[in-house]
């Protein structure tokens, strides 16, 4: 499906991209869409940070060729969008718990979407970024800047946040960040749901390009995830 760029805010390393789709797509927090410029053959998955009707916002880190191309977009440029894919957070998490949201860099996007839609399930939130660059396009409650506070997201969590018995964690970020969180909480008996990132081919489970090892065999992050109970997955492969 076509979508049109309505607005694009940029810093050196981030894009806040707003598009309008031809038709409304139902996107639940945690789901993703495959985005590609018209002249690209293969797209990549991106989480949504905000949606209202046909308007969708994405917070994107500029890390590779495709995201560098996205940074060149201008108002009224067209993109190809398909989805939404993946299982929504709400369908996988324990809804009797209150969640501490931990977002690493642009992994914050689906958590912010979740926080907007299901505020009653959110206890606290930390969206961690290394530098204050992000503030140029994006500034919300819960934003943590490593260089400003002289500590990273996990150090901040253990220093400032008091866990309640009913707390669980919903985390999203790079694989390195998820591994760090798994290690940091290895001695705690606490439920952690992690939304995993991966390079994907199809986004719908057919190509077997985004595997993760679980206690129930190899699963696809695109179709069986992207969210997994962290105790169920083996991230070392």
């Amino acid at each position, binding site marked *: 499906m076509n979508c049109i760029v309505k607005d694009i805010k940029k810093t050196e390393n981030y894009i806040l991209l707003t598009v309008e789709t031809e038709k409304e797509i139902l996107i639940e927090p945690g789901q993703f869409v495959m985005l*590609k410029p018209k002249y690209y*053959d*293969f*797209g*990549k998955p991106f989480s949504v940070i905000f949606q209202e009707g046909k308007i969708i916002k994405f917070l994107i880190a500029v890390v*590779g*060729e*495709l995201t560098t191309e996205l940074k060149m977009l201008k108002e009224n440029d067209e993109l190809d969008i*398909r989805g939404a894919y993946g299982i929504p957070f709400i369908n996988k998490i324990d809804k009797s718990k209150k969640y501490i949201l931990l977002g690493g860099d642009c992994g914050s996007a689906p958590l912010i979407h979740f926080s907007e839609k299901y505020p009653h399930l959110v206890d606290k939130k930390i969206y961690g970024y290394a530098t204050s660059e992000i503030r140029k396009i994006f500034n919300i409650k819960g934003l943590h800047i490593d260089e400003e506070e002289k500590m990273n997201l996990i150090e901040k969590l253990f220093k400032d946040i008091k866990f309640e018995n009913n707390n669980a964690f919903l985390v999203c970020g790079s694989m390195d960040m998820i591994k760090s969180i798994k290690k940091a909480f290895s001695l705690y008996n606490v439920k952690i749901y992690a939304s995993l990132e*991966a*390079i*994907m*081919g*199809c986004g*719908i*489970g*057919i*190509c*077997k*390009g*985004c*595997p*993760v*090892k679980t206690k129930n065999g*190899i699963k696809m992050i695109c*179709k069986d995830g992207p969210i997994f109970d962290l105790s169920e997955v083996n991230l070392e*492969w």
Partner: protein
Amino acid sequence: MVEICNIKFKNPIIIASGPGGNGQELAEYIDLNKLGGFTSKTVTIKEKEGNPPPRIVNVKAGIINSIGLQNPGIENFIKNDLKFLNNLKTNVILSLGGENISDYLMLVDKLNNSNAAIFELNLSCPNVGKDGIPLGINEKSIFELVQEVKKISKKPIFIKFGVETFLEDLINAAIKAGADGITLINSPKGMKIDINTGKVILKRGVGGLSGPAIKPIALATIFRIRRNFRKIPIIGMGGVFDYKDAIEFIMAGANLVGVGSGVMTDPYLPLKIIYDLENYFKNKNYNEIFSCAVEGYYV
């Protein structure tokens, strides 16, 4: 309508082995029965967990994959996938992978009574084998394999090749041993390096390159083989992303056209290609365009 090996295909578009899985996930998006055929993901005797991630990397005009033949193994395939494939109202091509002749014989024996139309022997996966060396690069071993498989197979046998050196010799050996058809081309090897770290991106370093980047290579290979083997049925594939691509493959000499990585970019793409092809064929005869480029070459 296309007919090869006495099998009727309602249209020339099939799903190539791999990107369509074993059909069940893709069937959530499209009616597989509208396809000319569907090729299953390569199945092996034992379950394969596949290669470690990352398995996919995007490159200009293509994608490199290093899936590594992840599959459930023949017993689980029969238990969980074959019933679904048996019930399809289109031609099913079962892709088989093995390390030796006895592997293939065992697979054929276990699947001989399925409803499949064709067995495709995958001798050219770029992501398995010692150091990634594909199976089937030797005339003698291909001849022996095909000869033995033909003794027991109740289905036509197609051999899937890549762009191997001396491809004509390998195909000649396969045909002499009784192969009924050829599938061309499997993904050639590709690589991408992160220039910031100097490291290869895929864990195995190399993977199978697919997408529009390989279409000219696939066309040239099919064209060359068709010139040398006028009658052997050919399933052509490699970067088919729209109906015009499909027509080029038919003109180069392919009887059937496989959609591989294209289906990864859009699950509806194969049906769109069929729809557009039908419009194209309304005023043309399929047989008139078939191999016309090859014929033209000789004029």
